[in-house]
Structure formats: C-alpha cells, structure tokens
C-alpha cells in the first residue's frame, strides 16, 4: 500500500503508480527538449513544489499553520551564503549549519507556541512575527550586506558542482532531486509511528494525547523537520540566484507563495504541493505572457488575474485539486475499496 493521496493513507492504484513514474521520467529528460526559458520555469516550479512539501509537514500532517516559512528559507539562504562568501565553505557542508539554524529558530517559535498554548491563527501570527523580525533584522546586518543585498561571486561558465556552481541544468536536477527526496521522505515519515501521531494530533489533539501521544514532542518534531527541509530550499535559492535581499527573501509575500501550492494542490496530501506548483507557476507565466501580448501593461494586473484564478480553484476545489483529480482518474483506491 503506497499512500500518495488523500489526507489519510489511501493506496495508490497501478495506474497512479505508472503516472507517477512517467512524470518523474518526463521531468528527468525534459531539459533535452526544453529551451533555456522552459528549464528556468520548471526549476521555479520544482522549487515551489519542494518548499510546499516542506510546509505541508507542519500544516498538512500536524495541523500547525505557519505563515512565516520565508523565515526558514531566508535563514538557510543567508547562513549558507555567508559561510561560502566569508569562509569559503561550500553549500554541501554549509547546508548542515543552515538547517541547524533554521531548526533552532523553529524550535524557539514552537517552544513559545506550544508551551504557552498559542493555537491556530495566533500561532500563525507568531510565525509571521518571527519572519518579520528577521526581515527587518537582516536589513541591519552589514556582515551579510544589510538592506543593500548580499551577493555570491559569479564566474561565467564555471562548473563546480561541489560548490553548487554551474549551469542552469545543474540547478534543475538539484531541484528535481529535492522534490523527489522530499516526496519519499514525506511518505516514509507519514507511514511511521511519528506520522500516525502527527495526523492524530492534527485531527484531535485531546484524543491523541489520551492515546499516549506527547503533543509537545510531536509538534516540535514537525516544526523541526519542516524548518530543516525549508532551509535547504533557501540554500538552493542563494546559490541559484546569487543574490539575497531581506525584503524579498523574508517577505510576507514569499511566505504566502510558499503555502499556495499546497493549498491549491491539496493540504496534507503527498502529491498536492507538487501538483499545485505545476498549476500555479505556469499560470503566472502564462498571465505575464498574455498581458504582454495583449499590450495591457497595467501594474498589478497579473496579480489580479492570479488572485482571481486562485479564488476559483479554492472555491470549487476547497480540498485541493489533487484529491479530486486522483479520484476522477482513479489514481488512488477509495477508502473501503480494500488495501
């Protein structure tokens, strides 16, 4: 039984498995036929698919709403970039510290939230507050460029995978590996003892606790895992774009962009965040294209259309697109159909 759908563990059908493998293979060979632009769009899609999955560990699996995930992206990005620029430590080593710093930040938020009973929306506010403090704080840390931005050295034509320096293709495959890695990790976690406990805590915390689940520990682990994964996304971002601005990396807008794929695709599902990213990023690109082609260069028009498209998806598929699609295409077994 391979649960890739639904908010529980319902199994994937043979057809679903085939489609999954074909999609992965398709993505693996995509750069052979795609042009430079398409590869960059796909890389963005994969990045959002990845951080969406990371966010999903908190909200989707454990019911903890974080609206400040840009914090972990930013910490991961800045820590790994600073190690590289100031000490010459490459990202493969630097990511360890990047993850640890993000986990530490997550644990502080989690400790405050869970020890003092800050729940639901108020917990979400706490996560926003920390991201905002980081955004403003990093504006003043001149060691990493302050508000003027922090830049990684770029050498044209350099190919040094050990330091994550290279062509867009390298980044594409790293992003693809992150997505597949997160997918496998999410599935393994969800089917572990911890995964069952997370879902129980999400559904009914009191009943979970009465069934022997240590709420504090279960929630802290979810935050730690989510923060660590998201920080890796930050490391990727730093070395992909080679520039970091607190106003962008830690922005509220970024936090929202991170959660949209999961909401659109299906919160709590394994495939949802990935599907959501494949819907949203191309939709954004398409809108840009249409607006340019139509000569309607009004500021904010793209965001407006984007917002309308989102509303449509959320109103008509409130559980997300994936659960509906999976049912329609019979990619998963329905509960009651047997395992």
């Amino acid at each position: 039984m391979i649960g890739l759908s639904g908010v529980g563990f319902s199994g994937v059908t043979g057809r679903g498995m085939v489609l999954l493998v074909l999609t992965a293979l398709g993505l693996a060979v995509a750069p052979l036929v795609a042009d430079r632009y398409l590869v960059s769009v796909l890389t963005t899609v994969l990045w959002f698919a990845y951080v969406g999955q990371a966010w999903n560990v908190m909200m989707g699996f454990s019911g903890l709403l974080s609206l400040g995930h840009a914090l972990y992206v930013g910490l991961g990005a800045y820590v790994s970039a600073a190690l590289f620029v100031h000490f010459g430590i490459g990202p493969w080593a630097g990511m360890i510290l990047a993850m640890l710093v993000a986990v530490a930040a997550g644990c502080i938020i989690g400790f405050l939230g869970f020890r003092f009973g800050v729940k639901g929306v108020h917990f979400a506010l706490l996560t926003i507050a920390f991201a905002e403090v980081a955004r403003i704080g990093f504006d003043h840390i001149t060691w990493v460029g302050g508000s003027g931005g922090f830049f990684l050295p770029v050498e044209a034509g350099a190919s040094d995978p050990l330091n994550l320096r290279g062509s867009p293709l390298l980044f594409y495959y790293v992003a693809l590996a992150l997505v597949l890695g997160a997918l496998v990790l999410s599935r393994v976690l969800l089917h572990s003892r911890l995964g069952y406990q997370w879902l129980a805590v999400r559904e009914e915390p009191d009943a979970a606790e009465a069934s022997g689940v240590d709420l504090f520990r279960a929630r802290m682990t979810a935050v730690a895992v989510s923060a660590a994964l998201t920080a890796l996304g930050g490391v990727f971002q730093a070395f992909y774009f080679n520039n970091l601005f607190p106003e962008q990396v830690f922005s509220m807008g970024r936090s929202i962009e991170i959660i949209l794929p999961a909401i659109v695709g299906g919160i709590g599902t394994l495939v949802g965040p990935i599907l959501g990213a494949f819907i949203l990023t191309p939709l954004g690109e398409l809108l840009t294209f249409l607006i340019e082609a139509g000569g309607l260069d009004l500021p904010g028009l793209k965001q407006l259309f984007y917002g309308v498209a989102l509303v449509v998806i959320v109103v008509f598929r409130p559980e997300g697109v994936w659960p509906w699609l999976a049912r329609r295409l019979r990619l998963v077994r329905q509960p009651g159909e047997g395992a």
Partner: protein
Amino acid sequence: MTALLEVEGLSKRFRGLKAVSDVSFTVPEGRILALIGPNGAGKTTTFNLIAGVFPPDEGRVTLKGRSLTGLKPNQVCAAGIGRTFQIVKPFGQLTVEENVVVGALARERSVETARHQARAVLERLELADQANRPARSLTLPDRKRLEVARALATRPTLLLLDEVLAGLRPTEVDRMVGVLRDLNRREGLTILMIEHVMRAVMALSDRVVVLDHGEKIADGAPAEVVADPRVVESYLGAEALD
C-alpha cells in the same frame, strides 16, 4: 482484593465553582465500578482529573500505588489508563483501523505490529468490517465503539468509559454491554464507567459511586445504592420510590 485505582480527597474548582469536592473511592482490580449522578455532578471532571487533563486542586490519584497526580494525559495513558470521550473524538480523516493503530502505537514502536493489534481489537469490538472506512463516516453507535477500540488498543490496565452507551438503541446497548462484560470476565480488565443507562449499570457494575453537586453521596453495591433515599431523590427521581 487489591485496589487498582485509588482516588483520595479529589477537589477541583472552576472560577469558584466547586466541580468536584473531596471525592474518594477505590476501584478494585478486575472489577467494574460505575460512576453515576445527575448532569453537572462532576463525573466527567473526576474522569479528567484521573486522566490528567488538568491537575486537581487537592487530593491524589494512584494507580497500583503509583501516583498519577500531575501527570499529563499521555503519561497517564503510558501508566496504564485508557479513556474514551463523552463527546466522541475520532480522528475523522483517518480510517477506522488507522484510528486504532494510533492507540496501539502507545505501547508499540512498529507500525506493522500495531496494525495487527488494531485488527484484533476491531474484531473484538465488531468493527472489523468498517476498518477501511474514514472514521467521520461512521454512525454514532460505531463511533462509540471506535472510542472504546482506540482506548483498548493502548492496552490499559484500567479503562475509563465516559457514557459510551448514551444515545444507543437498546439492542446496541446490549451488544456493548456484552463486549464490556467479556473484556472484564475473560481478560480481567478493570473498568471505571460513567453511565446514565441504569439497566447497563445494574447489569455490569460490581460497585456504584454516586456524585451530586461534586460530592460523593453514596458508594456501595448496585442494589444498595439504588435503594438509598438520597440517591433516589437527587438522581433517580422520586417516582422510582414507588
């Protein structure tokens, strides 16, 4: 006959309101004790004090001589007390089996083993045919059974049942009474139950404790307790005297 659970001088106030006041009783090992009383008598509060939902203002709770006072619900569960909720709390999006697996994981690290245990418990509670349905789709009687199944899966030495028979039809009550009696007789499971269905209380319990306004007003064999004028007046109703 040794006492499995000892409750001594338990008191709890909520903003001045005395919910539970100096309540003491013991549950002997292998027996079924029923906690009865009118609504608002403090029965569920007593349960919550035993289960660690909140700490008592005064008094203590011991299980097999070990103090449970101040422990959190998950620690009380680990100590050997399983409980159900009066207002059922299934993990709605999970299947019936997954709900029970969560319970079994309280004492089991392997999900696979927990699944086997969960299946056995579901057989026991006659829920096996519903195993793959989402818990939210169950009928109320089945949800009540699921509460018991999940609590039982934690392998408790003492089971706390909070009105698991309320809202069930007579045939369903009989079915549940049969299951509970079986668990008690065959496996020696000790049960402390809050119950309004007097027919079941009389059929199952070895001893009855009556609460009224947070105080214990009677404690004894079922037949004695229902004949006690104070119990009749406060709970069973005057017409029962006729």
